[in-house]
């Protein structure tokens, strides 16, 4: 027998619409950036599709009581549109996806959040930012990204990896393609490998004063930008990051139905796991309701649950709060929780308090990009050109 829903909005249209109202305003503000641009048909259509898409997702989260499947839709769209828009902008500015020594010297390389793991030690030791990007100017300025990351970490901890990271949607997407995993057993111990990567890339960056993860290992260079192949070394680098993308972002997630790159290799994921300790939200397992079926262990995409952790009543610090285990639990034993409050009461309140900032984060990162991406696609279909 299925346990009745734990949330007061589930199955109730009126209550769901009421909770949706603030999100209607939030999405409008963040998709338009506070400055609506309806100058062309493409912009209007782009805005309408994005606006309806996100509010539909949020309404469904409220009405069905499910989180992950609707979060994943927005999250995967973020990854795809981010790559598409980023590549189009690069090609427009530089003529191709690669960057040259001149771009490095001019500090024109956009800064992504993963670099934060490598700049901390050198900044502390030498008062130098070891990344060839802009400190204050542009959409990917170093200071801006650090402030955004700090804010999100304090608010959501590793929730960033499921609600805001513009790369995570790649392996989240590929891990959902097959209905059943081909590789059924993937030892959760490999989640700690990401911490080893974090330690090493941080030390490696301090040793060479160069962000070596970006230089050599980042799989996502395949779908963003990379160094122009001008030597054996740059060719080797290209082979390394394309192979890592194929293995960690496509093949292994496909076969295991786990987010392998995020769970086992991303240094930023490991750093965000540490921030899970200081933010206010976590996921709890009600031990009285739990029947130890361990479906949550099987389904967790970041290997954050094992038998011991289920018995303890909470996932490991690597939990990225995607909500997959919560949705899968037939006994409603798993739920979002606000630290310091009773874990078995006011489940709707705790969920809503988490969903509003988390979903807003998703909209902030995706909204403008998706709208612009749709505008570009409309231009491509109507004029045959992206530019």
């Amino acid at each position, binding site marked *: 027998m299925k346990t009745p829903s734990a949330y007061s909005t589930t199955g109730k249209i009126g209550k769901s619409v009421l909770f949706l109202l603030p999100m209607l305003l939030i999405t409008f503000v963040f998709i338009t950036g506070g400055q609506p641009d309806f100058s062309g048909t493409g912009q209007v259509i782009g805005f309408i599709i994005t606006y309806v898409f996100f509010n539909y997702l949020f309404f469904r989260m409220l009405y069905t009581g499910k989180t992950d499947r609707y979060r994943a839709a927005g999250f995967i769209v973020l990854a795809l549109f981010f790559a598409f828009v980023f590549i189009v902008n690069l090609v427009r500015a530089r003529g191709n996806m690669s960057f040259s020594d001149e771009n490095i010297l001019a500090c024109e390389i956009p800064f992504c959040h993963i670099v934060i793991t490598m700049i901390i030690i050198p900044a502390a030791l030498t008062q130098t930012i070891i990344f060839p990007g802009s400190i204050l100017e542009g959409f990917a300025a170093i200071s801006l990204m650090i402030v955004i990351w700090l804010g999100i970490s304090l608010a959501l901890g590793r929730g960033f990896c499921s609600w805001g990271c513009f790369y995570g949607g790649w392996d989240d997407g590929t891990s959902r393609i097959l209905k059943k995993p081909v590789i059924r057993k993937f030892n959760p111990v490999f989640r*700690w490998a990401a911490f080893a*990567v974090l330690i090493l890339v941080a030390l490696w960056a301090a*040793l060479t004063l160069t962000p070596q993860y970006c230089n050599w290992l980042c799989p996502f260079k395949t779908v963003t930008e990379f160094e122009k192949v001008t030597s054996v070394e740059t060719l080797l680098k290209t082979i390394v990051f394309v192979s890592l993308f194929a293995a960690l972002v496509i093949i292994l997630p496909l076969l295991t139905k786990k987010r392998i790159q995020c769970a086992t290799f991303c240094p930023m994921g490991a750093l965000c796991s540490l921030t899970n300790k200081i933010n206010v939200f976590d996921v709890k397992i009600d031990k009285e309701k739990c029947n130890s079926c361990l479906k949550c262990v099987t389904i967790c995409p970041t290997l954050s649950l094992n038998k011991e952790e289920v018995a303890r009543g909470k996932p490991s610090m690597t939990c990225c709060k995607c909500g997959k285990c919560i949705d899968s639990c037939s006994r409603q034993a798993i739920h979002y929780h606000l630290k310091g409050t009773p874990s078995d009461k006011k489940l709707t309140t705790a969920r809503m308090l988490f969903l509003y900032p988390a979903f807003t984060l998703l909209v902030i990162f995706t909204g403008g990009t998706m709208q612009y991406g749709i505008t570009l696609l409309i231009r491509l279909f109507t004029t045959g050109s992206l530019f």
Partner: protein
Amino acid sequence: MLSSEGFILGLSTGVVCLAYCGPVLIPYILAESTRVKRNYLSLVLFLGGRLIAYLTTGLIAGLIGMTFFQKSALFTRALAIVYILLALLMIIYGFHRFREICLGSAGKNVKIHFGPDLTAWVPFLGGVLTGFNLCPPFMMAFTKAFATGNISGSLMLFFWFFLGTSVYFIPLPLIGFVRRQKVLQIIGKFASILAGFYYFYLGLIMLVHK
């Protein structure tokens, strides 16, 4: 004079030394982390190995001319081999008892044995091999030691340089105070394997470029 010069040089550049030796020492301390006392013993062994490497270098610096030393292709090749040996040491150490520590019962199909347990010697060997690392502080000390023009002065400078740099290693064994020892051990094993690949790559590049 030489003692204070060497010590101050070590103190002022020791953080860089820590960054160079960290990828070798930190994974070991994490992986073996049980008690702070044991960690300090590992640190002493590691520093002992480093001291031997430094004194050997001091001896060489006093004996032969630096120009010869720097231009020698043989020396570059020897360093490359040192890196590769270090890489092998770390990879073997990483996989040693990997099943027991990391995989537990789930890794019953993984069978990796490397003979008798000689893990206590890993920090000592790691210390020797990283001691020959051509990091910027090491090169600075080498230049100064060479400038002394005699063996005793060169040895003295390297000894005090060693003491100056070692100050930064003192807090590392305190990792033993962290409660989740098992997790640290697993992270240490993974880090050791990954660092091994990194040093292997460095050695290979040096061999190729000569």
